[in-house]
C-alpha cells in the first residue's frame, strides 16, 4: 500500500531523512521509534505534504500513485490521515461543521456523493459510540480550549469519521497521562482492520503496550537502522537508543 524508497528530505537547508526505505501493507501496524532529531516527525510531515519539507531524492507511492506529487487535500482524499502531534486550535470553526466539510470534500474529490446533514449526524453518532467520546466536543470550535487528551482523542475521532486507508500517528502519546493514553489506544485499536495500515511514530515504548505493532523500526540519523517485531521495542526500552548506535557505529553522531 505505502512504499517509501530511499527517501531523502531536507528542512531549512538541513538534510533530515537520508535514504529511508519502508513498506506498509494493508492491515499492518508499523511502529517507528527513534531518538529526538532522528527525523520521526519529518517523516509524518513529508508524507502528509506540509510546506517547507523538500524531498531531494527517493520516492513514495501510495497504492501505485506518486504521493509526493499530490496536494495535502488530495493525499487526504486518497486515504492518508495524519494524527498531529500538536493538533491546531481553530477558533470560530465549529468541530462538526469542520468534520462534515472535510468528509464531503474528500468524497467530492473521490467522485462520491456528499452526505447531507442527517446522514452525517448518523455517522457521527456511530463513531462517537465506538470512540467513547462525549458529543459535547462536537459543539465546540475545533480543538479550542481542549485539554491535551481531548485534542488527541479528537484526532482519533476524526480518523474514525474519515476512515483513511493509512493512518499516521505522529507522537500521539506525547503529553498524555496513562488514562488518556489508554483511551487513545483503545480508539486506535477499534479502528484496526485488515485493510487499514498504521504508521505509529513514537519516542517511547509505552504506547506500544497498548497498540501492539506488527513491526518495529528504529529510525536514527534519517534512516531505518534496525527492524524487527514488537520485541525490538522492548529491547530498546531496556538498552536505550545508544544501543542501536553502538550496533552500527557508522550511524552514531550527526554526520551522514
Amino acid at each position, binding site marked *: 500500500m505505502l512504499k517509501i524508497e530511499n527517501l531523502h528530505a531536507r528542512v531549512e537547508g538541513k538534510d533530515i531523512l537520508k535514504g529511508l526505505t519502508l513498506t506498509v501493507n494493508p492491515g499492518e501496524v508499523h511502529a517507528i521509534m527513534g531518538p529526538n532529531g532522528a527525523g520521526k516527525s519529518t517523516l509524518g510531515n513529508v508524507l*502528509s505534504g506540509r510546506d517547507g519539507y523538500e524531498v531531494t531524492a527517493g520516492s513514495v507511492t501510495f497504492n501505485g500513485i506518486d504521493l509526493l506529487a499530490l496536494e495535502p*487535500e488530495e493525499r*487526504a482524499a486518497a486515504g492518508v490521515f495524519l494524527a498531529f502531534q500538536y*493538533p*491546531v486550535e*481553530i477558533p470560530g470553526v465549529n468541530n462538526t461543521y469542520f*468534520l462534515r466539510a472535510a468528509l464531503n*470534500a474528500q468524497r467530492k*474529490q473521490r467522485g462520491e456523493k456528499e452526505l447531507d446533514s442527517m446522514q452525517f449526524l448518523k455517522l457521527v453518532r456511530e463513531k462517537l459510540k465506538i470512540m467513547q467520546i462525549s458529543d459535547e466536543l462536537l459543539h465546540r*470550535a475545533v480543538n479550542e480550549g481542549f485539554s491535551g487528551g481531548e485534542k488527541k482523542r479528537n484526532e482519533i475521532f476524526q480518523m474514525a469519521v474519515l476512515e483513511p486507508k493509512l493512518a499516521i500517528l505522529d507522537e500521539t502519546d506525547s503529553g498524555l497521562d496513562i488514562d488518556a493514553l489508554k483511551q487513545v489506544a483503545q480508539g486506535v485499536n477499534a479502528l484496526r482492520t485488515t485493510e487499514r495500515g498504521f504508521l505509529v511514530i513514537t519516542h517511547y515504548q509505552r504506547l506500544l503496550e497498548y497498540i501492539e505493532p506488527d513491526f518495529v523500526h528504529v529510525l536514527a540519523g534519517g534512516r531505518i537502522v534496525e527492524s524487527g517485531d514488537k520485541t525490538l521495542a522492548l529491547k530498546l526500552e531496556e538498552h536505550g537508543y545508544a544501543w542501536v548506535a553502538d550496533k552500527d557505529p557508522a550511524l552514531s553522531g550527526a554526520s551522514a
Partner: protein
Amino acid sequence: MSEAQRTPFVESLLEAAAQAQLPGSGIGWLDAARRENLDAFVAAGLPDTRVEAWKYTALRALGQRRFAPGDAQATTRAVDAAAITLPGVDGPALVFVNGVFRADLSRVDALPAGLSLQPLSQALQGDAEPLRFALSRHYREGGDAFARLNAALSGDGVVLRVAPHATVAQTVHLVFVGAAAEGDLAWHMRHIVELGEGAELSLVEHHVASGEQQHLGTQVTDIALRKGARLRWVTLQDASAGSTLVRHDSMQLDEDAQAASHVLELGGALVRHDLHATLAGDRSRLETRGVFVLNGRQHVDTQMAIRHQALGTASDSVWRGVADQRSRGVFRGAIVVAQGADGSDASLSSKNLLLSGQAEIDTKPELEIYADEVKAAHGATVGQLDERSLFYLRSRGIPLAEARAMLTAAFCRAVFASLDNDALREHLDHQLMAHLPSA
C-alpha cells in the same frame, strides 16, 4: 479661490448647484446655509492626503471626474423588490433611489405609536423650524469637504423621531438604492434621527445596488439619543462595485443612553465612513461592531472617533478587516476620554487579515485619556492566515481555497454575535460568506 482648485469635480457640482431646485429653497436660513457651505466647499475643494483625516485616501482621481446633478428618472426606475427586503426587517421602510424618495417602494402607512418617519423633502414642506439647528451646521475642518457638499446640495433624506418612552417593536428599514442611469450621478442625503427620553428603536441602514453604476453618494446623519434612550443600528453597505459612497455620522448620547452599531461594509469602489460619537451624558454606553471585506481594487476607509465626556461612560468597539487582491482598507479608531469623564471604560480592537501580497490595510488606534480611574484597552493587528491552521484543514481533505474561506469567515463571524436579530444576523453572515474568496 484659485483656479487650480476648480477641478472637473468641483465644476460639475457647481453646475449642479446652479441648476438644482432643492426642496426647501426659499426658506431664508436654509438658502443661506446651503450657499455658505457651497462657498466653503468650492474654496477648499477636496482635501489631499496632507490632511490627516485623509492621509490614506487619495481623492485625486475623484477630483478629475464629473457627475450629473441628479436623476430625472429616479421616480420611475424599476427596482427589484427582493433586493430591498431583508430577513428580520419588516417594519416601516423608506426607500430612496439615486437620492430621490420613492413613495411607491416605501412602507409608511400605519406607523407604530410614537414613531414619526418621513422624507426630508416632505418635512421641509411643513414647519421647517425644528430642522433649523441640524441643517444650519457649518463644517469648519479641512477634511469636511463632503459634509459641506452635502449641506449645500442635499434636499432629501430621512427625518425620524421616536417620542419619549415609546418603544418601536418593529425594525425600521432605510434603503438607499444606487440605480444604473445614463451617466454618473451625484446624490446627497441628509438624515436626522432623534430618540426621545427612554425611547427604543431598531434601525437598519441598507445601501444596495440596482445595476452597475459609478455614482457618487454622500450622506450626513445626525443621531441624538436623549436620556435613557436605546438604539440598535445595523448598517449593511452593499453598494455597486463601481460606486463612491461617503457617509458622515454624528451621534450624541445623553445620560444613560445606549447605542449598538453593527456595520458590514461589502460594496463600493471608494467608500469613506466617518462615525463620530459623543458620550455626553453620565453612564451612556456605545458598542460598535464592524467588518469590511474587500477585493478587486476596493478602497474602504473607516474613521471612528469616540469622545467620552461624562462620568462612567463606556465604549466597546470590535472591528475586523479582510483585504484580498489589490484592495485597501483603512481603519482609524480614535478614542478620547475627556477631563471629567472619570470611571469610564473604553476598549477597541481592530484585527485585520491580508489575503494577498498586494492588498494593504492601515489601522491606527488612538487613545487619549485626560480623566481619572479610566479602564482602557486597545489593540490593532494586521496579519495573514495562520499557515498551521490552513495545513490542518487541508490535511483533512479540505481544498486550499475552501480552507482559506473557512478561516477567513471564522475570523469575521464572531463580530456580529452580539446582534440580537437572529434572521438579520444570519443574513449578514451569509452576505459575508458570499463576499469572501470563494471555495
